[in-house]
């Protein structure tokens, strides 16, 4: 038997295979395809204080070995989430991280406050890096994930409201991911998860218009994997808290690569769209890989990169 158990702060995960926010709905969408109870954990679709209609179409476009999305955080809002989505997630009895996003620190506080009252989940993933919504009230506002001091402000505000696990989801469009991860660590995050999608663009050369109604979107899929691996490797060297690796994982080998680079757990994202059974297949493959290579404990794999 191989031991797949891993930890994110106080939170014990039965295995390191999680599913990424925005790629798994609120899990029910996948119940006909896989046994959800086998997952290491679920990160929900991001919720906001108020319901959001999302962006107008076109919302997605395929690019070589990847896709752009600009969904615009379509979600029912925190009240409906607690009422309609959380009871189902709670029944699965596996680690549940609720992804939350605010345009201002106060909104994150309000969300956390409301969710704390409800309970019935294990932690938060603070989405500091959605590329498809405008931030703040002034046009000069920037994404939390683009500024270390803003990451710190957002995470410490959430930290004050909860004893549950807090994960900071970082974006890739920064000059030094290590510094951003350190900012989250300083603010009391239990872990950082990276990377979110890259801000990217596709143009229709006939009409000369952006393909997406939002003009830009987030790039995901196998094309971003090598960059994601590099960023996880960089971040893992800079912080003591666990790093959760995300970015283009399609198969077991990809997940193993992230673990070796230093990720304590990984999230399967875009692959869920192409193969709704991808997460479980990666999990089964991971067990087989460990058996084949006589690795008894997943900890022997995490951060085992040989640099010379």
């Amino acid at each position: 038997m191989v031991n797949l158990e891993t930890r994110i702060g106080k939170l014990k995960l039965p295995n390191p295979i999680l599913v990424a926010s925005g790629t798994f709905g609120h899990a029910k969408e996948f119940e006909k395809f896989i046994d959800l109870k086998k997952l290491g954990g679920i990160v929900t679709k991001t919720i906001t204080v108020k319901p959001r209609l999302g962006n107008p179409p076109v919302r997605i476009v395929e690019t070589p070995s990847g896709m752009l999305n600009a969904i615009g955080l379509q979600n029912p809002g925190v009240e409906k989430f607690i009422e309609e989505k959380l009871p189902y997630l709670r029944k699965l009895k596996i680690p549940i991280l609720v992804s939350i996003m605010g345009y201002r620190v106060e909104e994150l506080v309000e969300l956390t406050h409301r969710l704390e009252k409800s309970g019935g989940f294990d932690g938060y993933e603070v989405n500091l890096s959605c590329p498809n919504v405008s931030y703040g009230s002034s046009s000069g506002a920037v994404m939390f994930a683009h500024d270390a001091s803003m990451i710190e402000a957002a995470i410490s505000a959430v930290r004050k409201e909860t004893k549950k696990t807090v994960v900071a989801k970082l974006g890739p469009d920064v000059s030094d991911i290590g510094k951003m991860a350190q900012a989250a660590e300083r603010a009391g995050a239990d872990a950082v998860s990276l990377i979110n999608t890259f801000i990217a663009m596709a143009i229709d050369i006939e009409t000369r218009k952006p393909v997406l109604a939002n003009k830009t979107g987030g790039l995901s899929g196998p094309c971003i994997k090598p960059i994601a691996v590099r960023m996880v490797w960089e971040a893992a060297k800079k912080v003591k808290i666990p790093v959760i690796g995300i970015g283009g994982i399609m198969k077991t080998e990809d997940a193993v690569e992230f673990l070796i680079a230093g990720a304590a757990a990984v999230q399967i994202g875009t692959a869920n769209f192409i193969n709704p059974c991808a997460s479980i297949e990666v999990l089964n493959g991971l067990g087989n890989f460990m058996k084949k290579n006589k690795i008894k404990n997943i900890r022997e794999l995490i951060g085992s990169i040989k640099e010379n």
Partner: protein
Amino acid sequence: MFRQKCLVVKQELTAPGHFTLTLRSPRISKNARPGQFVQIQCAEDSCDPLLPRPFSFLTAGSSDFSVLYQIVGKGTELLARKKKGEEVWIVGPLGNGFSVSGSKNRLALLVGGGVGIPPLYHLAQELLKKKMNKKNIHVFLGARNKSLLLCEKDFDRLGVDLHLATDDGSKGRKGFITEPLEHFLAATGDSRQIYTCGPTPMLKAVSRLAARYKVPCEVSVEEPMACGFGACLGCAIEVKKGETKRFAIACCEGPVFNSKDIVW
């Protein structure tokens, strides 16, 4: 909803640039309703293209189902290379489908254009199975030219009433299919139901006619999508209920909508 590897039973050229692919899967087949669709993974390693491609059912029997598709890009090019005996990954059946229940005495008007025609053939077969009189089924097909009037012979074999239009006048009426449809709507007054699938401008025109003649109309839309089962929220379409507008998710709330609900 299932995901499984399906055996290619047959692959045949049905019209210039159009193929019919028959696949084996009793459980997908038996559960398929007209207007529903499958997602087909066209590339073996699923990297190029990355996303599966959605196709509505042309037929669905007790063990096999088929889809009729046009080669429009890399995905469909790869799909056309699949030969009998090979296997492809399928997810389906997906979506809601057309409503087939209703009075047997109503007139069913099936209005299709281009690759929007196949699900209407599936629907016609299902309506006949539901004991609808073939005289009450009127099929309106539009295409650029006669060789692209998909399923024309198949509909003919069912014995349903066919109305044709081509852009170049090589078969049927020259012009859009909405012209013969309007004549028909003006000339008949019984209880009627329109079902339509095809290019968006056609759907829009058919919906307008349906509203003008106060005929209920079900529209099957196509939007760019990633997953096909409501996880990515990519295939948004604007719908309204009274004054309230929102984005519906075409793959699971649709692809068939009441034409009155769509913000055109």
